Each structure stands twice: as C-alpha cells, then as structure tokens.
C-alpha cells in the first residue's frame, strides 16, 4: 500500500506503524479527583467503550498510522477496508486540534 503523506508525498505503507481506529484520539475525560462511585462507574464505561469497542466498519475507515520510518508524524488515513482505497490523509495533530483535544 502507499500512503500519500500530506507533507512528504507518497510513501510505502511499510514505513508506517498501524494503530487502529481514529476514535482512539477521543480519549474520555478523567473522572477527576474524589469522584463519586457513580462517576467512577460512568467513566469506566466510557473508557471501556473507548479502548475496547470498535465499529470495525466494512467500508470507509478512519484510522491512525504512525510514520515511524519517516517524519514521526501520526496520520489519520481514510481508507476503505474492502478495496483498500485511500481517499484522505491528514496530520493527526491537525485533526486533534480541530477536535479540540486538550490536556
């Protein structure tokens, strides 16, 4: 496969390391210090779904790839899981900022 890196142009996917569904960028908020039991359970549910449950789509899939043998950037790649066609490649950092991800 070839990933058309937004900064570097086409690179063999062998240069990248795959992580999985781009939803892994949507890390739930921590329960906070001194959370109630209920809040803890709710947060655990959210973390469970975040880490373990996947839509696992047969179709267009937004997914995370890391350019380990390249510029060390994380990318969000939109790729079809049946045809493998790639229709979009973005810098994950840009996506994260647009999402409002924050520490």
């Amino acid at each position, binding site marked *: 496969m070839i990933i058309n890196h937004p*900064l570097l142009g086409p*690179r*063999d996917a*062998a*240069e990248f390391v795959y992580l999985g569904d781009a939803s892994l960028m949507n890390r739930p908020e921590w329960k906070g210090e001194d959370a109630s039991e209920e809040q803890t359970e709710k947060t655990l549910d959210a973390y469970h779904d975040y880490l373990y449950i996947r839509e696992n789509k047969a179709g267009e899939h937004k997914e995370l790839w890391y350019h380990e*043998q390249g*510029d060390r950037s994380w990318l969000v790649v939109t790729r079809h899981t049946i045809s493998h066609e790639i229709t979009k490649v973005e810098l994950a*950092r840009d996506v994260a900022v647009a999402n409002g991800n924050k520490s």
Partner: protein
Amino acid sequence: MSSLAPTTAPAPLRALTALDDFSEDMYGVNVVEVTNKGIVSVAIPNASKAAFSKAVTKSYKVDLPEVGLFTQSKTNNTRFLGLQQDQLFVLFDYAGDRAVDEISAKVNSDKQLVYLSDQSDSWVTLNVSGENCLAALERICSIDIHPDSFPVGSVARTSMEHMATIIIHESEGSYLLLSLRSFAHSFLHAVTTSIKNVS
C-alpha cells in the same frame, strides 16, 4: 591493562568514528564515511517559528527549508534539513563535543526560542557517489530518488534494509546516507552489498 594505579589525571578520551573512516571505490561507486560533522536537532514550537526563521536568516543567510528539502549556508557548510513539520536537523562542519552550544550561540541565544538536542554521535554518515550509485541504491531505497523526483536539495527520512535512514541529495550524483550509529556495520554492509550486486 596496567596493574599500576595511575597517580596522574586520566588521559583525555579518544574519539572513534563509527566505521574507522571507511573509504573505498567499489565498481564505480565511491563510498566514504563522512566525519567531523555536528548534527543538532531543532524542535520548533509553533509560536517560535517566525522568530527562529529570522534568527537563522540573520546568522546563516538562508531560509528555513520546507519538509523534504534542505537549505545550505556557507557558514560552516551548514545544511538545514527539513525532516518534520516541527523539527529540523542542522548538519555542519564541526569537530568538537558541544555542537548544541555552537548552534545555540547563533540562533537560540535566549535559550527559549527552540529546543536543541545533540545528535552528532547518533548517526553514521556515508557519502556515496559515482556512476553505479543510483543502480545500487535502487536495491535498498524504496523512495523514488530519480533526479527528476529527488533533485539536488532534497532530503528524506526513510528506511533501508530495516534501518532508519536519512538520504540527502547533496550534489549532482552524490548522496549522503545517515543511519543510526549502532547499525553502522550493518548499514555499510547493506550499501556495499548493493554495489557488489549491481556490478
């Protein structure tokens, strides 16, 4: 080992190059270990980009490179390698132990603009050039380095034979290959094997 306890201060440490200054002309390809270079990585916070760019232009009379390209200054034969969006490498003639100070003095005097890290000992550098050079590199380099696609002034970070590699098209038909220093022997072996295989 001496059995006598030395009474004087220890002798200064001896520096070794990664490949013992390897240099050979093999089947039309010249392979030379490049030494006496300083390599400093520069991490550039978004907010500092403009100021840093100015500082570089001032001290080195060159612009910052785009990712995938390098710019070259006469000062210490310095190349700014555009490797990442927020990080570049400075590669320059230097034989000392304090490469960071060298760069810091020129472009980061207030120490706040950018973050520098010494990489001088992290890499082994080979210069390969000559007639069969491209044919040999074709065996290990997956990216398109045909001069039309990778003209002089290009730089790319990729991997060759499972080893992280930075490739620089420094001048017509002459390439610098940087790989991690601990891999030096395997890397040289990969390059020379390619040359032999295409001879």
